[in-house]
């Protein structure tokens, strides 16, 4: 394999990760506000199907993408309403929606199986595509892949640099304190759940109108993406760049799985494919183990400086979820 071939492949990895980036960032924003949207798997399928149907009917890709975002926002609205207004478990509602939306997409999408709708294509950026390495890697992608890069930066900038982003972090970490400082916690949670849902909803059309163009029902190869998205969100530690890194790591593992197939015949092909999940579990383990009672118990007797060091090491993982994730807020 030549250098440039690797670059082109990596460029492909970046493109393959684009929908996952959207979904993970959408989920990250929602969870930052304290709303865990477990419906991701059904949501991506339904928005993939819905946006494909719209693009098919209108012959307009843009309307298709719009539909995908709308579906994502609508489903998030249901999650938000059930949990924020009706005080029901976010996990339960999200899980039901994950299954419901999946079946709904198969049922409603049956008549349009296998049809050909418009799709977006590559859009090399003149001038920039010629830059060595970066040109190949970044500037010969399609619109949504560019947007995925922009979105990562934008999401990071919004969350960590803007005033509303600061409030967003606040309502997810300590809604009571955010309330005291003038934030309308529940309304903001609605807003961010729906914005996050709309962004994540775009993952659907990126699949069905671009990288896996078409709608093929159960063999579309999309069932399961949503669960992976939830895993990467955790791995990403609710930080856009780390989340994006998780998405690219996932796509690279997938790619490695097939590249290494001939050279590592002794490794079952499933190993690299499922790798994101053990990775997620390990991440969670490192992040949480410090809180476990037995760890605390055994740490208690250690000399203070050793304790500090261990606490520091655990802290370095620094991927604690928003403290109020999934916890409803009621002002006194």
């Amino acid at each position: 394999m030549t250098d440039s071939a690797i670059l082109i492949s990596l460029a492909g990895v970046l493109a393959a990760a684009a929908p996952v980036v959207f979904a993970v960032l959408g989920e990250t924003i929602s969870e930052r506000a304290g709303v865990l949207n477990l419906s991701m798997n059904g949501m991506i399928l339904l928005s993939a199907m819905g946006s494909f149907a719209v693009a098919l009917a209108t012959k307009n890709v843009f309307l298709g993408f719009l539909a995908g975002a709308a579906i994502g926002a609508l489903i998030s609205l249901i999650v938000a309403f059930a949990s924020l207004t009706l005080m029901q478990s976010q996990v339960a509602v999200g899980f039901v929606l994950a299954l419901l939306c999946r079946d709904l997409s198969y049922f409603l999408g049956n008549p349009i199986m296998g049809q050909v709708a418009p799709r977006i294509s590559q859009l090399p950026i003149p001038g920039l595509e010629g830059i060595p390495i970066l040109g190949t890697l970044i500037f010969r992608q399609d619109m949504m892949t560019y947007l995925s890069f922009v979105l990562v930066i934008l999401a990071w900038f919004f969350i960590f640099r803007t005033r509303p982003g600061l409030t967003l972090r606040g309502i997810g970490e300590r809604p009571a304190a955010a309330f005291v400082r003038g934030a309308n916690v529940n309304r903001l949670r609605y807003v961010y759940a729906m914005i996050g849902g709309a962004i994540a909803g775009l993952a659907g059309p990126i699949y069905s109108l671009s990288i896996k163009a078409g709608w093929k029902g159960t063999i579309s190869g999309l069932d399961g993406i949503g669960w992976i998205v939830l895993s990467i969100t955790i791995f990403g530690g609710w930080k856009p760049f780390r989340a994006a890194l998780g998405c690219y790591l996932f796509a690279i593992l997938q790619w490695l799985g097939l590249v290494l197939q001939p050279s590592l015949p002794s490794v079952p092909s499933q190993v690299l494919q499922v790798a994101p999940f053990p990775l997620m579990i390990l991440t969670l383990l490192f992040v949480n183990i410090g809180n476990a009672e037995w760890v605390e118990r055994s740490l208690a007797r250690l000399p203070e400086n050793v304790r500090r060091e261990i606490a520091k090491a655990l802290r370095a993982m620094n991927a604690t979820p928003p403290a109020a994730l999934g916890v409803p807020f009621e002002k006194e």
Partner: protein
Amino acid sequence: MRNVSRIFLMLLIAVVVGSAAFAQSAPPAAGSNLTIGLVMVGPYNDHGWSQANYDGIQYVLAKVPGTKLVYIDKANSADRPGTTVSQLGESLVAQGAKLVVFSSDDMTDEAIKFAQDHKDIFVVLTSGSQQWKDGKDYKPLPNMINVMGRMEYMKMVAGVAAAMTTKTGKIGFLGPLINDETRRLAASAYLGAKYAWVNYLKKDAKDLQFKVTWIGFWFNIPGVTSDPTQVADDFFNTGFDVVISGIDTTEAVAEAAKYQAQGKTVWAVPYDYAKAIDEGKGVSLGVPYFNWGPAYSAVVTSAMKGTWKSHWEWNAPDWKNINNPDTSAVGFKKGTLSKAASDGVDTFVGELGKGLNLWKGPLNTQDGKPYLKAGTVATDQQVWYLPQLLEGMQGQSVSK
């Protein structure tokens, strides 16, 4: 406790009755009207394997008077949790089906159970080998017929088209999961490609690269299989300019179209459904496809006339016209081919019709061990149960 023993007694009786059933004869003639039940593994409109079968039965309905169709698609436990294929077959029987086509090798076990449980129903198991006396899985069932087309030939043709087209001498094969069938189809494509490379293009066999990448399943399951889109991309990115698809879904064609749009000269070969070529105008070199109509017509007719006899058939193309919808079990629909490539395909088909056999020694398996000695021709068994990829092919031979 008494109940338990009674149940075991019932089991015993069932086993005895079940084994006695092998002695029974096939169901009697179905008469002038016949409702056909069709069980498909994927969606009936999948533009792939299932739809090819669906079209095959549609052909029967048009050609054989008195036939009706009831069908169920997506007959797999992922799509229809909690159901078994034999149960789905029974649903069709309840709708009046007297002959049930189980149109996938994946349904083998359930089709056998169904055939054993319903001796009055004609059963067709497509692509199975249970009624092949010389096969490894021979399990005589008087009401079952196995039907399969010799796709190997058309994969060879696909290989020829690929070899005549490639500029880089690198051909990729996008494989599903690894088994005997997928190995022999991949090997066939390789044999065709090598033949054209050496004999038509007069190039050194060493300069031809033929690489197989398996995704691990018939379609993509995120988090479990490799992504065929990525596989196709990877081929195109690493200098492979033709990708032959071994899976039903059309990622290879879609990706080739994408790369062509970027000004790259790459092509793809879809698989097994004639109209799949429409999805990739300008990028598909052609499609090797199944034409199930004639074979299904024959078995349906035999059931109606009372001439049904359990057997296994592996149907060759009609060499006079491989695309004859009434006679050829498999075909190759040409797509975007250069003049030379198109001529090469025609020449090759002509040679095959005259008796050219590429399954002929000396051939070694991938590990270098002899598979066929010089001069010997492979038997059907040797081809059907190909144990490894052939020497000269890259890629995994056996799943780990």
